[in-house]
């Protein structure tokens, strides 16, 4: 082994790559070579560190200095100061790692990381995802060895059942039970599949795991194959995730090279192979039966259950289907034991959950917290609160299938059952924070637009019902709402929930129902007062002249196409709201910027 005294870790997740981390890797390599340090310092591109808002991120070990918002221009200074002279460049340090007296704190003491408990993400941002040996050094593939050499398939399934692990893709179905069903299903040929078609807008944890720790998925799926008796696995990945696909491909090839995939793994009778299948941009394919139909090469339309995939799945064979984050927990459970895993979290929701923090929050990025952590802790302690001095209004979880949690419920512990009881759901873990400027009717409309667009069209409650709901929402946000519209929405929602074929349709009304539950007054303001309290719905804005700023020049009155503006010369003008068509000409023409939409 070659010893390097220092490791420079550069985040290569999608977030940081978008902010130019590849150029930083190049710059480091070049500069380090120039200074003659290339035998002493190693540059490693890792997966996501989680703090995407501050990217590109660079960590220099052994000091553990956490540099944020690094540019290629900063690199020569970092090399000559930190790597040559050992002087940490404080101006580039993540400010939270600096105490008031300029002393440097460990990254793990920073608010963003302190409350986190990383299981699924434990290797993300720590190892080089393109080097299998780094994964092995972090005890990688030990769980596979343990399962294959020391445990029977039944024991593996028992362990997963005992751990209390539940599906992280949204439903929260007990994972061990799924494994058992597939194990018990009759059939020579069985398959293991992974749902990496992360379609929920605002959720990107599966992508981060694939990018930062792809071997965890390879190892977990192989263990699953051994447990349920399958010799072949499929990973269905979104085509929108090119970096993830590439890293997973590399991981599979390396695992084959090391004999950790393929025939007679660890010299046992067990053989297993993995194949990647690319999605093609259809949200419904995140639904398990639709995903299976899509891998089979068809239009990704769901089919009724039962039969469940565990009995009749891919190519008609029993198939085990879990999502990426669920699998990522498996090697840890096998290695550290079910009791360890079950000791984390709440009574019914064990372990941790990864959330993608987004929207109006300081620390956007990925966080992994024990189940039962409250929304307040996530938003304020980890997320750093709401920027620009605005107030927290609601958090949206569960994407287009979930709902909004209002500020009154901010102390709700986050776990599968609590979220369902307040009308939202865990979903895959997108957590979008909204402030007072966001209109809840508009947000509901946003999600409905999404489902209308993504409805596969197979069953009519979803295809037609969601469309009708969207039309009503459009009407309401455009100021044409009528008495009875809100009730119509509720009625439609109920029918769609009970009559749709698959999860997409059954949960499609949730964003509307939950916002109606907690923000009914906003709907009513739109319908009865033709007013958008948050000031977000454009059609409901009024064009108003600021009396103080108006000089009475009469330009606006002359330009108005409908003669809606009245006023004496040199005196403040007024817009007749009944006549005004909100064309905005007056706003453009006013030389004193006294007119605005409000």
């Amino acid at each position, binding site marked *: 082994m070659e010893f390097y005294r220092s490791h420079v870790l550069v985040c290569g997740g*999608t*977030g940081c*790559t*978008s*902010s130019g981390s590849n150029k930083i890797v190049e710059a480091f390599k070049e500069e380090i070579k120039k200074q003659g340090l290339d035998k002493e310092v190693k540059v490693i591109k890792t997966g996501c560190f989680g*703090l*995407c*808002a501050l*990217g590109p991120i660079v960590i220099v070990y052994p000091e553990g200095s956490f540099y944020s918002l690094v540019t290629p221009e900063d690199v020569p200074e970092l090399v000559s100061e930190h790597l040559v002279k050992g002087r940490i460049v404080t101006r580039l340090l993540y400010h939270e790692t600096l105490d008031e007296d300029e002393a440097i704190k460990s990254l793990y003491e920073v608010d963003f990381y302190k409350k986190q408990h990383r299981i699924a993400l434990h290797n993300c941002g720590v190892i080089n995802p393109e080097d299998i040996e780094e994964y092995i050094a972090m005890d990688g593939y030990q769980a596979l060895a343990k399962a294959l050499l020391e445990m029977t398939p039944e024991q593996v399934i028992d362990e997963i059942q005992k751990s209390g692990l539940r599906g992280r893709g949204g439903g929260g179905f007990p994972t061990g039970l799924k494994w058992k069903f597939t194990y018990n299903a009759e059939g020579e040929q069985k398959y293991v599949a992974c749902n990496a078609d*992360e*379609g*929920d*807008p*605002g*959720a*990107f944890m599966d*992508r*981060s795991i694939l990018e930062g720790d792809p071997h965890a998925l390879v190892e977990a799926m192989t263990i699953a194959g051994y447990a349920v008796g399958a010799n072949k696995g499929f990973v269905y990945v979104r*085509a*929108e*995730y*090119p970096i993830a696909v590439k890293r997973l491909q590399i991981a599979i090839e390396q695992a084959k090279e090391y004999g950790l995939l393929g025939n007679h793994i660890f010299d046992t009778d067990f053989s297993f192979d993995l194949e990647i*299948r*690319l*999605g*093609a*941009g*259809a*949200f419904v394919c995140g639904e398990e039966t639709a995903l299976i139909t*899509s*891998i*089979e*090469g*068809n*239009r*990704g339309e769901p089919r009724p259950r039962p039969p469940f995939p565990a009995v009749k799945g891919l*190519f008609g064979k029993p198939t085990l289907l879990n999502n990426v984050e669920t699998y990522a927990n498996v090697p840890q459970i096998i290695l550290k034991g079910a009791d360890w895993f079950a000791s984390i979290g709440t009574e019914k929701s064990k372990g941790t959950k990864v959330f*993608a923090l*987004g*929207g*109006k929050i300081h620390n*956007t*990025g990925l966080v992994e917290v024990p189940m039962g952590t409250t929304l307040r802790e996530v938003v304020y302690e980890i997320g750093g609160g709401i920027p620009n001095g605005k107030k927290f209004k609601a958090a*949206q979880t569960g*994407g287009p299938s979930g709902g909004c949690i209002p500020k009154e419920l901010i102390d709700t512990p986050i776990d599968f059952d609590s979220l369902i009881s307040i009308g939202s759901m865990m979903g895959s873990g*997108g957590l*979008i*924070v*909204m402030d007072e400027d*966001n209109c809840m009717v508009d*947000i509901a409309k*946003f*999600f409905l637009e999404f489902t209308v667009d993504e409805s*596969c069209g197979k069953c009519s409650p979803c295809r037609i019902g969601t469309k009708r709901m969207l039309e009503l929402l459009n009407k309401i946000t455009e100021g044409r709402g009528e008495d009875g519209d809100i009730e119509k929405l509720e009625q439609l929602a109920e029918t769609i929930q009970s009559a749709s074929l698959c999860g997409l349709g059954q949960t499609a009304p949730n964003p509307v129902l939950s916002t109606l539950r907690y923000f009914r007054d906003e709907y009513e303001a739109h319908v009865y007062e033709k007013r958008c309290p948050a000031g977000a719905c454009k059609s409901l804005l009024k064009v108003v002249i600021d009396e103080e700023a108006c000089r009475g020049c009469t330009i606006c009155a002359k330009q108005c196409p409908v003669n809606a503006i009245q006023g004496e010369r040199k005196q403040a003008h007024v817009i007749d709201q009944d006549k005004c068509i909100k064309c905005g000409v007056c706003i453009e023409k006013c030389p004193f910027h006294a007119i605005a939409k409000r």
Partner: protein
Amino acid sequence: MSKCCCEIPKETVEAIREIIARHKEQEGALIPVLHEVQEYYGYLPFEIQKIVAEELEIPLTEVYGVVTFYTQFSLNPVGKYKVGVCMGTACYVKGSDKVLEEVEKVLGIKVGETTEDGFFSLEATRCIGACGLAPVITVNDDVYGKIGANEVADILKKYQ
């Protein structure tokens, strides 16, 4: 359905056949084949779908059904630069609708269209998972994060 007015050159047909041959043994080969063929040809017009159907020995209707089901597959030629405005929740909450409006204004096209010179096409994309940088736009493989509507013109200028 779009009609292709031109004959598909012989080399192209050969290349497509070769792609298909590589997948013939695979179960559920249609979608992987379409991905590769589109990568090669740029889009999937009727003529190309016909070749795929013939080679894979499945009905053309099935190929067409799959092509039109998935948003990644395109029946029409796309621009040299594909501009995508992310419409994921995180981006939407941070005002990506205004960014989209601006892109439409600058390019003079609506979502799903291509500029006359064939340079730009515009899409409203699904969440690309760069939520930490919202709002985000992409131009082919380049990603621009935390952008305001006023920066759109400058970004697009780089490609003209």
